[in-house]
């Protein structure tokens, strides 16, 4: 058993949209000392009042299994899926990135944005707001490049994820 090897896991949880459900999930992570690297939540089924929570976490395999089991026994939880483990999946997040710059750095920022297929969604003579969608690594790489060019503010959505193919949660 790889008892000590840590891995990342993207876990999706389908929950009833009731009051306090997010607090239950985050309280579980805080109370049991699990990491949360990213967390997103939104209603995905209006008729049945269900929300989907996507959590990126890390731990040994035993810990990840434990996180799954702990989530699964929360009363308002319908389904828990470890997307990382259960087959190929796609994960995306979106960021809005404000760069305050003029002159050469401004031109350079725009050039890099084009290479990353980031969209300019706001511009003034000394600023841009870029919109960039991609996996976490891509967003991180873009931010690294923007930092010396006048990166001023970032707003990220956190990760949304789904399995590839016909499989559903």
């Amino acid at each position, binding site marked *: *058993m790889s*008892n000590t090897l840590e891995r990342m896991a993207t876990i999706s949880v389908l*929950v*009833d949209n009731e*009051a*306090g459900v997010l*607090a*239950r999930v985050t*309280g579980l992570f805080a*109370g049991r000392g699990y990491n949360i690297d990213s967390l997103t939540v939104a209603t995905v089924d209006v008729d049945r009042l269900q929300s989907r929570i996507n959590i990126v976490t890390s731990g040994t395999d*035993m810990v990840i*299994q*434990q996180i799954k*089991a*702990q989530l*699964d*026994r*929360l*009363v*308002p*939880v*319908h389904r828990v899926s470890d997307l990382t483990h259960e087959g190929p999946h796609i994960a995306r997040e979106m960021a809005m990135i404000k760069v305050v710059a003029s002159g050469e750095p401004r031109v350079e920022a725009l050039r890099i944005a084009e290479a990353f297929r980031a969209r300019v969604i706001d511009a003034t003579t000394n600023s841009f707001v870029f919109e960039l969608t991609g996996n976490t690594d891509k967003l991180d790489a873009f931010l690294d490049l923007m930092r010396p060019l006048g990166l001023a503010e970032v707003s990220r959505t956190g990760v949304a994820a789904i399995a590839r193919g016909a499989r559903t949660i």
Partner: protein
Amino acid sequence: MSVAPQASVAAQAGAEVLLRALKEQGVEVIFGYPGGAVLPIYDAIFKQNAIRHILVRQEGGAVHAAEGYARSTGKVGVVLVTSGPGATNTVTGLVDALMDSIPIVCLTGQVPTHLIGNDAFQEADTTGITRPATKHNYLVKKSEDLARVVHEAFYVARSGRPGPVVIDLPKDILINPAPYVGVPETPHRSYKPQTDPDPALIEQAVALLKRAKKPIIYSGGGVINAGPAASAALVDFVRATGFPVTNTLMGLGAYPSPDPLFLGMLGMHGTYQANLAMHDCDVMLNIGARFDDRVTGRLNAFSPNSTKIHIDIDRSSINKSVHVDLGIVADAGKAIAALSAAWKKDKTKVDSKVLAAWWSRIEEWRAKDCLRFKQDMSKGAVIKPQYAIQRLFEITQELKREIFITTEVGQHQMWAAQYFHFRQPNRWMTSGGLGTMGYGLPAGLGVQVAHPDALVIDIAGEASILMNIQEMSTLAQYRLPVKTFILNNQYMGMVRQWQELLHGGRYSESYTAALPDFVKLAESFHAEGLRAESVDQLDDVIRRMVTSEKPVIADICVDQKENCFPMIPSGAAHNEMILGPEHESQSVGVTDAGMALV
């Protein structure tokens, strides 16, 4: 999908609807304490006779009473308290019930919905505070949700791994008319615990057990929670296999003691034979226990060479701290029944020669007689606490009565587990997971309410008993003749023992000066007070206690410096157990790392 039950036309006040739902859930008793926010419920209680209300003296007592009631009957225990301080006083009991998997529904009053969040008088964020203290909780914000939530709460409390559920009830919800709905056909949208074992896994388990050379069966509170039939099935299965069996603290009573196949309790203060058999076994079958740290000792030295099978209704208990080879999610009763059937079907013969060899090693360990102690029988001699429990057991066995034992927390609790024997489940109520001092007296109260003719004894320490002593007043009011048997060593004995063994004998704050006179204290609470100061007085005090028709406090003055052995110190392994002074000295397995543990 089920058809939604029809709401009844003439809507009653929320409080009436609440009581109607409780009645439909079969509730007969509520343990509670009133206050402004729940007055509408008390008004509704006043107008009916079906549900009895027991007025405790502190809300913490109500939860432990409900725990005792639940654990001794298998039913859900019900608590009713007011908002704010009423609700916060329940937190310890709720966590206690959560840790020991006791089904409780706790109704808490709340300020009216329009005041929530305003820091209103006696407002507390009860659902926020109790979220990690419960299996689940609810805040009823709409009258139409009220009856459904009550039914759901009972379902959640008793199904799967049982636990406490809080329903927070704003005062306007209790006053305003609310529609009634009955118990739904589909109990829950999302919560559907798995109770049937996977037959293929059961066959694998049996195959492993049949080929075992040094097997052991280790069962816990899950077997008790699965109902008396599960304990009976366990006995049949163990006898069919001829394997040794040990119980956790929470599991005592599932297998009758004494019995040749029974090795006694295991764990920190378990028997030598049980712990060494756990350490040396080659196949371990855990049914309804959770590899608690009080049981495993140092994890990396826990039963190092065994193949482990773990049956638990809670998937998250499997592979939580101990890696197991075969995990089976199931109700303990159903799993044992399946194991028994598969055991008969699998025609593999158990190798009786190797099993006999295993038993002869176990008998060598048993021959150590690890619970041996010396009692000086001369007149005026100091009472050994072990002897007091032994006599309590022997004398109560002479009575043809149902006996229920509750305990407080400390050395006396461990001595009770070691020297009192149980032949049936649901007769032993103790705070195992949380270790809550003050549990035993109110728990005994709850047991006595459920079993008015039984002999209910709280085996107590003089420190613990003071934590909920106010419930003596409740005993008097309802004529509940609970007996409190105090092993009075004037010390927080378990704390003193750790200080002696782990902290160089620095007895910091573990001696209680100015204890009350327990005899007078009993009398002031309309109970009978008795005292035994030396061994020659013990039997008489016990006999007077068990024959009294009143609540009794028996103050048993015991050896102040006695330690509870055997002991696996924190951070030590099963085979590094310390035996008592009656046994030849051996190296003490105390390490610095262990000292940092609890």
